[in-house]
C-alpha cells in the first residue's frame, strides 16, 4: 500500500503510487550526534549544514527513473544531474534547516522542477509551513509540493493550507486513516496559501 496522498486540482485527495525514488545519503558516523547539556539536539538550526562532503560524495544515484534529490547533493553534483533535470526526472528535497533562497539560487525558474519536497525530520518542526508558504507565494512554485519525513495526520490540515499538495505519510502509519484529517475544519478563520481570511471569503454580517 502506498503512503502517498495527493490532492487533485479540485482538492480531491487520494492515495496514489509514488513514482519517485528518494535519494538518501548514507548515514554519517557517530560523531555527528550533537549533544547539549547531555541531551541529544533534535533540530538543526536554519542555515546549518545538512550533509557532510563525505556523505554527499558517497551517495548513490540510480542512472534512470525519476529521482528526488537533496538540495545539497544537487549543489555538489549538478553536472551529472543536469540531463535528469532536462528530462523532467529531477525533483529537489529541501530540508527545514535550508532556505528557499538557496533553492531559488540554483534554479532561476523553480517551475522547471516537477516536484519539490520539504523534508521535516521531526513533526514538531513548524518551519515546514513557512517554507511551503514561501515557495508558493513568494517564489511562485506551481508544481507538486510534497511534505516528506515525519509527516503525520494531525499536521496534514496545516500542511495543506501552507501550500502542500502531496503528503508522504510516515511509513508506520496508515495513509488511509490520514485522509480524514485533511478535512478537519470546513471554514478556517485565517487565510492560507490558497484562500483569503474568512471575512473576505464569506459574508459574516
Amino acid at each position: 500500500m502506498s503512503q502517498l496522498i495527493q490532492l487533485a486540482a479540485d482538492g480531491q485527495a487520494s492515495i496514489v503510487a509514488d513514482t519517485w525514488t528518494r535519494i538518501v545519503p548514507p548515514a554519517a558516523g557517530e560523531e555527528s550526534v550533537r549533544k547539549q547539556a547531555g541531551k541529544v539536539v533534535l533540530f538543526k538550526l536554519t542555515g546549518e549544514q545538512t550533509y557532510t562532503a563525505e556523505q554527499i560524495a558517497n551517495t548513490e544515484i540510480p542512472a534512470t527513473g525519476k529521482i528526488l534529490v537533496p538540495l545539497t547533493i544537487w549543489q555538489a553534483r549538478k553536472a551529472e544531474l543536469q540531463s535528469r533535470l532536462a528530462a523532467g526526472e529531477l525533483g529537489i528535497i529541501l530540508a527545514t534547516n535550508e532556505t528557499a533562497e538557496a533553492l531559488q539560487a540554483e534554479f532561476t525558474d523553480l517551475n522547471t522542477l516537477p516536484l519539490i519536497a520539504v523534508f521535516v525530520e521531526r513533526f514538531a518542526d513548524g518551519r515546514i509551513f513557512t517554507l511551503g508558504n514561501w515557495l508558493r507565494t513568494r517564489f511562485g512554485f506551481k508544481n507538486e509540493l510534497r511534505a516528506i519525513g515525519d509527516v503525520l495526520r494531525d499536521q496534514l490540515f496545516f500542511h495543506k493550507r501552507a501550500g502542500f499538495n502531496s503528503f508522504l505519510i510516515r511509513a508506520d502509519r496508515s495513509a488511509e486513516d490520514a485522509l480524514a484529517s485533511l478535512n478537519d475544519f470546513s471554514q478556517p478563520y485565517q487565510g492560507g496559501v490558497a484562500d483569503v481570511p474568512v471575512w473576505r471569503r464569506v459574508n459574516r454580517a
Partner: protein
Amino acid sequence: MYKYDPIDQQIVNERVAQYRDQTRRYLAGELTDEEYRPLRLQNGLYIQRHAPMLRIAVPYGLISSKQLRKLGDIAKKYDRGYGHFSTRQNLQLNWPKLEDTPEILAELATVEMHAIQTSGNCIRNITTDQFAGIAPDEIIDPRAIAEIMRQWSTFHPEFALLPRKFKIAVSGTEKDRAIVQAHDIGLEFYKDVQGQMAIKVWVGGGLGRTPILGTVIREHLEWQHVLSYCEAVIRVYNIHGRRDNAYKARIKILVKALGIEEFKRQVEEEWAHLKDGPLTITQNELDRVAKYFEPMPYKTLPAHDAAFDAAVASNPAFAAWVKRCVQPHRVPGYRAVTLSLKPHGKAPGDITSEQMHVVADLADAYSFGELRSSHEQNLILADVQVSDLFAVWEKAREAGLATPNIGLLTDIICCPGGDFCSLANAKSIPIAEAIQMQFDNLDYLYEIGDLELNISGCMNACGHHHVGHIGILGVDKDGSEWYQVTVGGKQGNDASIGAVIGPSFSAEEMPGVVQRLIEVYVRERQDDERFIDTVRRLGVAPFKAHVYAEKETA
C-alpha cells in the same frame, strides 16, 4: 462581548471532534506520548504532578455569567469543585481525568468556550487590561482587534508549531495594565496625530528563565496592518528562532542575538511582501466585530449617590472595601468592582463552584451579565451602579469574595507551584498563605499601602515574580526547597525587573523576611511614597542590610 456566529461555533465543534479522535487514538496506543503531547497542549491539557491540568481560554479576560456558571458546573462534575484563575486570565482545572477532557471541551463548546492554544508552542490567548472599555484613562478599546487577532491566530496554519510559545498582549490605556513589555509581542494602541487608531509595537519581552523587557520595533503601525505585521514578525521567528534548546527558543533570545535593528530589517523586508495583501483588516470586519464591544446601555445617573455616601461614612468595613475593591468608571454613576480571589490563607486565584455561581448571579443582577478576569487573578464586575455597591458588597462578603486587599501586600500573584506543578523547585501556595497570615491585619496592610508581591515556584516565572515589587522565586538547593527574594520589580509603563537581595531563605523564614522588608520601607519612606518608590530611591542595600542583619542575630 463577542458572540459566536455559525462559523465560530462550527470551528469549535469541529475542534472538539478532532480532539476527541486524537485522544481516542492516544488511549488506543495509536499515538505515542511525544506525538500526542503538542495535540493535547494546544487543547490546554498539561500532564501534571497529581493529575492532568486543563487550561480553559477566557479570551482577553471577558466571560459571561452563563459561561462562568458552566465553568462552575464543569469544576463540580469533572473536578473537585473549584478552579483557579491564572495570570493569563484563563481558568485552570487541577484534577480532571484525561479521558474526560473531550467531554469537558464539548460542554464548553455549548457556551462558546474552548481551550484552544492555551498551551503549546503556538500563539496563546491574547491578554489585555481588565478594565478595557470602561477605564477612564482608556484611549482606545483594544478588544475588537484582540478578537480579530484571536480568530486569525486560531489554528494558524503557518504558526502551529513555533519554536516556543508566543504571547501577545494588547492595551489601549495611558497607564499600561496589560504588561505589554513582558510579551513576545505587545501592542499599545493610541490615537495618532491624524486622530486615527494606531499601534506602537513592542517585541521580544518575556519573563521566564531569562527575563527581558520588550523593545519598540515600530512606533506607528496603522491598525489595518496589525495582522500582516504580526505575521511578518512571527514568520521571521518561525524560521530563525532556536529550536535546539528550549530555554533559548523564545523570540526574545532571537531579538537579542540579532539585535533589534537587524531583526527589524528582516521583519520589514518580510512585511513588504505582506502589507496591503488579504490580511489587511477591512473597515467592514472591524465594524462587524466592534459592534459586540459597544458601550453597555448605561443609564444617565448622577455622579453621587447620597445613600452610598452615607454608608461609606458610617460603615468602616464597607468604606475599606470601597477604597480597595472599587475602581473608577468612565460613565458617571458607575464603578468597577474587583472581587478578591485572595482571601487570607487560601490559594490565590482559587474559586469554588459555588462562588462561581454567586459571581454569575451578581453579574446578572448588577453588571449586564458580564465579568472580567485579571492577570492579578481576581474577577471584575465592570459596570456596577454606585447605588448598588452596598448590595454587591454584602453578597460578595457573604461568599468570601470581598477581602478588601486589592493592590495590597496580600493580593499576591502566585503560581500553582510544587503542590501541583511537576516543574516546580518549591511550593508557592503555602508561602503565599503564610505571608497572608503574617499580615492578617487590615489596618497594618493599609498602613503599608500599594504593594505587589509575586511568587513563582521556579524560574519559568508563571507567577511573574520578576515584576513584583517583592518577588519570590522557588529554588532548589541540594534537593530541598529555598526561596530567592527580589525587590524593585514593577509592571506598567515604567516596568522593571527586580534585583536579588542575597542568598535564599527557607520556607519558615519567608514571612519574617517580608516583614523585615516592610520594616525598612516603613522606616525610610518619605511622604506618601509607595514601597516601590522607596526601593527605587534607595536601591537594594538598606533592605539587604536589615534582612540579613536580623538573620545573623537570630
